[in-house]
């Protein structure tokens, strides 16, 4: 049973409208409203609401402020490139915008002075609310913004609400500040199904859609709990789910058949495949670069020289190899090592023409190789290979090269 919203100072009709718009979040809305109190009462100078993405933080706060008609302004801090934009938005929404004249790059001092001035002309009968969404951006804007906003209630009956994904411990300045009241919006648990089921398609029954949602959650819930993403995935995959019904192959009650149809499709939806078309020699250059990055230089002789003779693994080597090179990342290699490996890997005789070198630089532009060290080191530039093992295996497969045989970590 959802808790009813009750607060003196607001009509029952308004409160009922609010609780209809915030399904599964009535408890949080009630807690927030209880903190706000009546329209002309003071509330705590600053409130910090935190929780994962798509938990309804902005939605609940905005619904409360809008439906109950409290004077407020909402600013998304990500959109404010400079503090000036933030100040303009706050003053412009709370006061009559014609009276607001800010200088070109206003400081917090200008903002406070102007705010005090405008308050004196138009003092608040009801509490004003300033909502700062994505408040974590404020930390990097200017060191005094966050502590300043937390204390804004010294000027007027205003409460600042900060919304963020990140916990308050990461916000606190080193010398401390006025601590805000913290409110947590927990994850949905049972309510997720309820909310997702509200998106049902008109031409199909609600039970069918609920069944579909249950399958979807079964596959994706262990990876992703974000409501927005799940709604997107549900909308994306529903047509495929309904295919057998459209074609007449199954009825709504053939749950098993529908499940068998959609489950592999959903599992595949979690995979992504990348493969780009590269010219023939570029592929070999990339393979050679990968080998140069992930094989230690002393093992080149073993792999690439014919009749190399035996190489003994001494105990010295064994003790120091605790992690494979694949876990540490690619190592840089000089250009001549790359060319040496390239020539031994490519079957036919290839002359060192300029086109080979230009292919190397185009691999760098494609960010499949990166140049390490100074740009002006012309005689022996160093590179490293930045593609993953799966990618290079796919490439090697297209040219018929067994790369695993040449990698030191897979011996």
């Amino acid at each position, binding site marked *: 049973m959802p808790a009813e919203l*009750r607060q*003196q*100072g607001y009509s029952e009709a308004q409160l009922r409208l609010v609780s209809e718009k915030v399904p599964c979040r009535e408890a949080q809305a009630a*807690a927030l409203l*209880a*903190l706000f*109190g*009546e329209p*002309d*009462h*003071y*509330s*705590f*100078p600053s409130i910090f609401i*935190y*929780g*994962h993405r798509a*938990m309804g933080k902005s939605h609940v706060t905005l619904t409360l402020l809008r439906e109950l008609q409290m004077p407020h302004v909402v600013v998304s801090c990500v959109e404010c490139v400079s503090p000036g934009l933030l100040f303009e938005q706050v003053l412009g929404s709370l006061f009559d915008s014609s009276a607001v004249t800010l200088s070109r790059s206003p*400081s*917090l*001092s200008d903002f406070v*002075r102007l705010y005090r001035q405008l308050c004196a002309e138009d003092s608040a009968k009801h509490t004003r609310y300033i909502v700062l969404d994505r408040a974590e951006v404020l930390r990097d804007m200017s060191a*005094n913004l966050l*502590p*300043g906003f937390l204390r804004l*209630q*010294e000027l007027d*009956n205003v409460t600042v609400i900060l919304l963020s*994904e*990140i*916990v*308050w*411990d*990461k916000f606190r300045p080193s*010398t*401390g*500040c*006025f*601590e805000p*009241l*913290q409110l*947590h919006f*927990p*994850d949905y*648990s049972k309510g997720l199904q309820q909310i997702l089921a509200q998106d049902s398609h008109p031409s199909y029954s609600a039970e069918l859609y609920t069944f579909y949602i249950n399958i979807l959650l079964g596959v994706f*819930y*262990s*990876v992703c*709990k974000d409501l927005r993403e799940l709604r997107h995935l549900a909308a994306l995959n529903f047509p495929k789910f309904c295919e057998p019904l459209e074609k007449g192959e199954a009825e709504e009650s053939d749950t098993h058949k529908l499940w068998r149809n959609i489950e592999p499709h959903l599992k595949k939806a*979690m*995979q*992504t495949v990348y493969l780009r078309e590269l010219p023939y020699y570029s592929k070999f250059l990339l393979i050679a670069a990968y080998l140069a990055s992930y094989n230690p230089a002393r093992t080149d002789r073993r792999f690439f020289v014919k009749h190399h003779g035996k190489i003994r693994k001494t105990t010295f080597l064994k003790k120091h190899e605790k992690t494979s090179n*694949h*876990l540490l*990342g*690619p190592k840089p290699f000089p250009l001549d090592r790359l060319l040496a490996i390239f020539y031994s890997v490519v079957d036919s005789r290839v002359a060192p023409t300029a086109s080979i070198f230009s292919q190397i630089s185009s691999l760098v532009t494609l960010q499949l190789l*990166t140049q390490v060290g100074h740009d002006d080191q012309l005689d022996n530039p160093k590179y490293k290979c*930045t593609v*993953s093992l*799966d990618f290079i295996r796919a490439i090697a497969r297209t040219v018929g090269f067994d790369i695993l045989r040449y990698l030191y970590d897979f011996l």
Partner: protein
Amino acid sequence: MSKRKSKDTQWTAGECVSQAQKILRERYCYQRVPSSPVGIESQRKNLLELLRRTAIHGESNSVLIVGPRGSGKTMLLKSVLKELFEVREVQSNVLLVHLNGLLQTDDKIALKEITRQLQLENVVGDKVFGSFAENLTFLLEALKKGNRSSSRPVIFTLDEFDLFAHHKNQTLLYNLLDISQSAQTPVAVVGLTCRLDVLELLEKRVKSRFSHRQIHLLNPMDFHQYIETTQEHLGLPQDFPDERFAQEWNSSIKMLCEDRSVKDVLRKHFNTSKDFRSLHMLLLMALSRVTPTNPTIKPGDIQEASRLCSMDAKANILHGLSILELCLIIAMKHLSELYDGEPFNFQMVHNEFKKFIQRKSHSIHNFETPVVLKAFEHLQQLELINPMDGPSAKIQKEYQLVKLMLDHSQIMEALQKYPQCPTDVKQWATSAFG
């Protein structure tokens, strides 16, 4: 349910509760100066005497009020100034300039603010000054009244004093303290700061001009006084319109403060922090549960408010993670234990996770690398993982070294509370080696 009184006004229960809420909220939120601040009598007398000497006898002074956040520095200053300005001579003669380190982040801005507060904008007009010192002396000269040879006394209050020490060359501080040492104008410089080591921040020439007077505000309350203060702060004042309601309220508060569980809660808060701000936060949360149908504060309200105030935020965030993200965190925990706190990258974590899936897991199936990378990036976005050297374009994101910002006990606690956590994941977490 209206309360009948012999006098004219009749207040309903709803109105009484509303009025009580209004008064108490103003007390907790708006920081009204209490008529008789407790426990700081000697400091108050000290400061009052100092400012009186500047205001009436024309003696220049400088003093620093030092105390932790929420210990009452601003409150002390405000109450002293209020008492001082009750004297007529002071009211007509002395000027007050309030500066704040958070707002005036630059000496230029500070100078403009001083000009504005001394109301000398017209006098300054478009003049251009060579240096800060010239500007300041001009301002103070301009304050000389008509035929009197001495300038009017000015009291400068500098809030967040330590932030002013970060300005370039500390010009503002140097000039203000310089003027307070030379006998030209009677000037009092009062600084408020929360840093005990504020004098270390000052340059030598600034420090030598400072009088080294410090007033420390250390709250010497004991637990008994803390409970008494709580009772006082929760009580309704004498002039409350409905006497009967006020009496009932005050007696219920008295009973509340004698309740065993409430005393335990208050002791827990007292042991964490003695300052009034956190007490007010607790009381406000308890007060917000008071409604006309529930017109008193009960022990349960205080307990619930305490629980909300002392929640572990990181544990709450961990509760909302997906299973895959939780598994990655456990993998990271094992890596830090195995390699003694050394940083790791995504490939190492993924490797550890794959080992778990191949050997021990029944319920978690293998996810594709991009999916696992996305989960890793989400953890980075929540700042549960921090990169060692900041974001770098040169290193691929799979190989960038990061470290985990959670400790062992937080992870284990989160696992206990995690809804429907698979048993093999729990066992993996508690096993010694991955």
